[in-house]
């Protein structure tokens, strides 16, 4: 950097650049909001799904699993577990935990009622119907 390029020029470019790109980000966010209804499956956001999301959160499922690829990488992706396994398997699986198989990864038993299990299944079904640009690459997640 030569003497022509001064600190105050660098500072002005910083402020100008930051403001410009933040405004661009806001504009893209605004446009994203217009596009969301076409992709986010919000028409199926029933009270049951909302209750299921809360169970998902209060059992800290994201502490082991990924959901649409985000979370921990210790246990399978659940964004597409509904088409992969189906509702009955999901409920049966959760009721059977922990397996207690020696040396294997263990999932806690959450003692969910049948209604709560249905809620979480509804949430996972709703999630699986979000348009994720065909991610994950295959059913294994």
């Amino acid at each position: 950097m030569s003497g022509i390029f001064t600190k105050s020029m660098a500072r002005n470019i910083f402020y100008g650049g930051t403001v410009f790109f933040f405004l661009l980000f806001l504009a893209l966010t605004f446009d994203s909001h217009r596009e969301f209804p076409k992709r986010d499956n919000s028409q199926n956001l029933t009270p049951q799904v909302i209750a299921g999301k809360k169970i998902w959160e209060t059992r800290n499922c994201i502490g082991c699993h990924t959901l649409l690829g985000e979370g921990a990488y210790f246990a399978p992706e659940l964004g597409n577990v509904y088409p992969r396994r189906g509702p009955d398997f999901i409920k049966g699986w959760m009721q059977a935990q922990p397996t207690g198989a020696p040396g294997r990864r263990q999932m806690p038993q959450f003692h969910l009622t049948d209604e709560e299990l249905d809620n979480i299944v509804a949430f996972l079904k709703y999630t699986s119907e979000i348009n994720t640009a065909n991610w994950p690459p295959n059913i294994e997640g």
Partner: protein
Amino acid sequence: MQYQSQAVAKPYFIAAIALFTGQILFGLIMGMQYVVGDFLFPEIPFNVARMVHTNLLIVWLLFGFMGAAYYMVPEESETELYSPKLAIALFWIFLLAGAATVLGYLFVPYATLAELTGNDLLATMGREFLEQPLPTKLGIVVVALAFLFNITMTVLKGRKTAISTVLLIGLWGLAIFFLFSFYNPHNLVKDKYYWWWVVHLWVEGVWELILGALLAFVLIKVTGVDREVIEKWLYVIITLTLVTGIIGTGHHYYWIGAPEYWQWWGSIFSALEPIPFFAMTVFAFNMVNRRRREHPNKAAVLWALGTGVMAFLGAGVWGFLHTLAPVNYYTHGSQITAAHGHMAFYGAYVMVVLTLISYAMPIIRGRAANSNKAQVLEMWSFWLMTIAMVFITLFLTAAGILQVWLQRVAEVPMSFMATQDQVALFYWMREWAGVMFLIGLIVYIVSFFVNGDDKATAR
């Protein structure tokens, strides 16, 4: 120490290192659970260990940032801190709130914790990194605001430098974007979209301003290079950071239900995100090469250079590795992500906080630098931890490539768990590298208690 009130940084640094140790111990527990699945189950399930591991990281880095600010700002502003008492009070509030939260994670089932702490009033819990109960989140806001008040008032009454301005913008940004942690819409797509306004705009945005300010401060002190030069570099680096990083948020919007044009915006801008990190590396080496003095604290110089290199590798190179949408389609949410996360956090934020501690702690303890013996030990810890982190990253990357291949690319894809069994060897190697990291950390802590009788470094 030029100003008495800079000493309030000391408890912040001590707490940071203590919590850092806790973070590493829980990291080792998790690493073990990756290969011996039922290790410590049901006492410490994986999700609890992970919450503790990641939350401790965030909290100790915040302690580090706050301590750094309390140390730097009086010196930059050439005035005593606005209120040292407030700084000490906030320290205890933050430490107790942090400790209570971690104990809550460990000893109360998460659903019960949510019920007890008012999650029904405003559901914010159970999202990655933002697992804290509502009172903790509110506490973070209160502590952050009081801290910012203290720092801002100090800057306002004294000299205004580019470093303190950039530091303030970074810290205010940190507090402001944390407010999005209170926004948790039922709509999962919007939930995820704005979750990144905390997570991405922190670590790939405003935190980098804090990083730049800390590094610039230490470089001025240890190299004696003209402030004008260093501050010009600082502005250039953070310009590059935000110009690429803000739109770069788009690399998280590929597969969560956001419009597909984000694949273009995210790929192009985040492909440029390594540039500011590269500039930082060049900056650090350039300034040290042009040094006008030989600072007795060699360890601090090593940490500063290490930050430049490791931040570029971890955040820059390992970020670029999987940031382009067609690549990320296969690597998203795999061990590649974990590899990047580890080296980026270590190289950028852990190392810059340790740089500042390395520089400031001896001065707070009444000497320009530690004895030669203590510095040698500290440099050993630098290499042990840094090389261990390189290995952790390489092993996780190997695991990730294999995982992606078996589970997502192969003609007959394997299930998640079958794939995990196939890559177990790499998880074992990662765990051993983790043990090496812990040894490095122990050496680091020991270096604080080594006196040596090197009179040359006494002030």
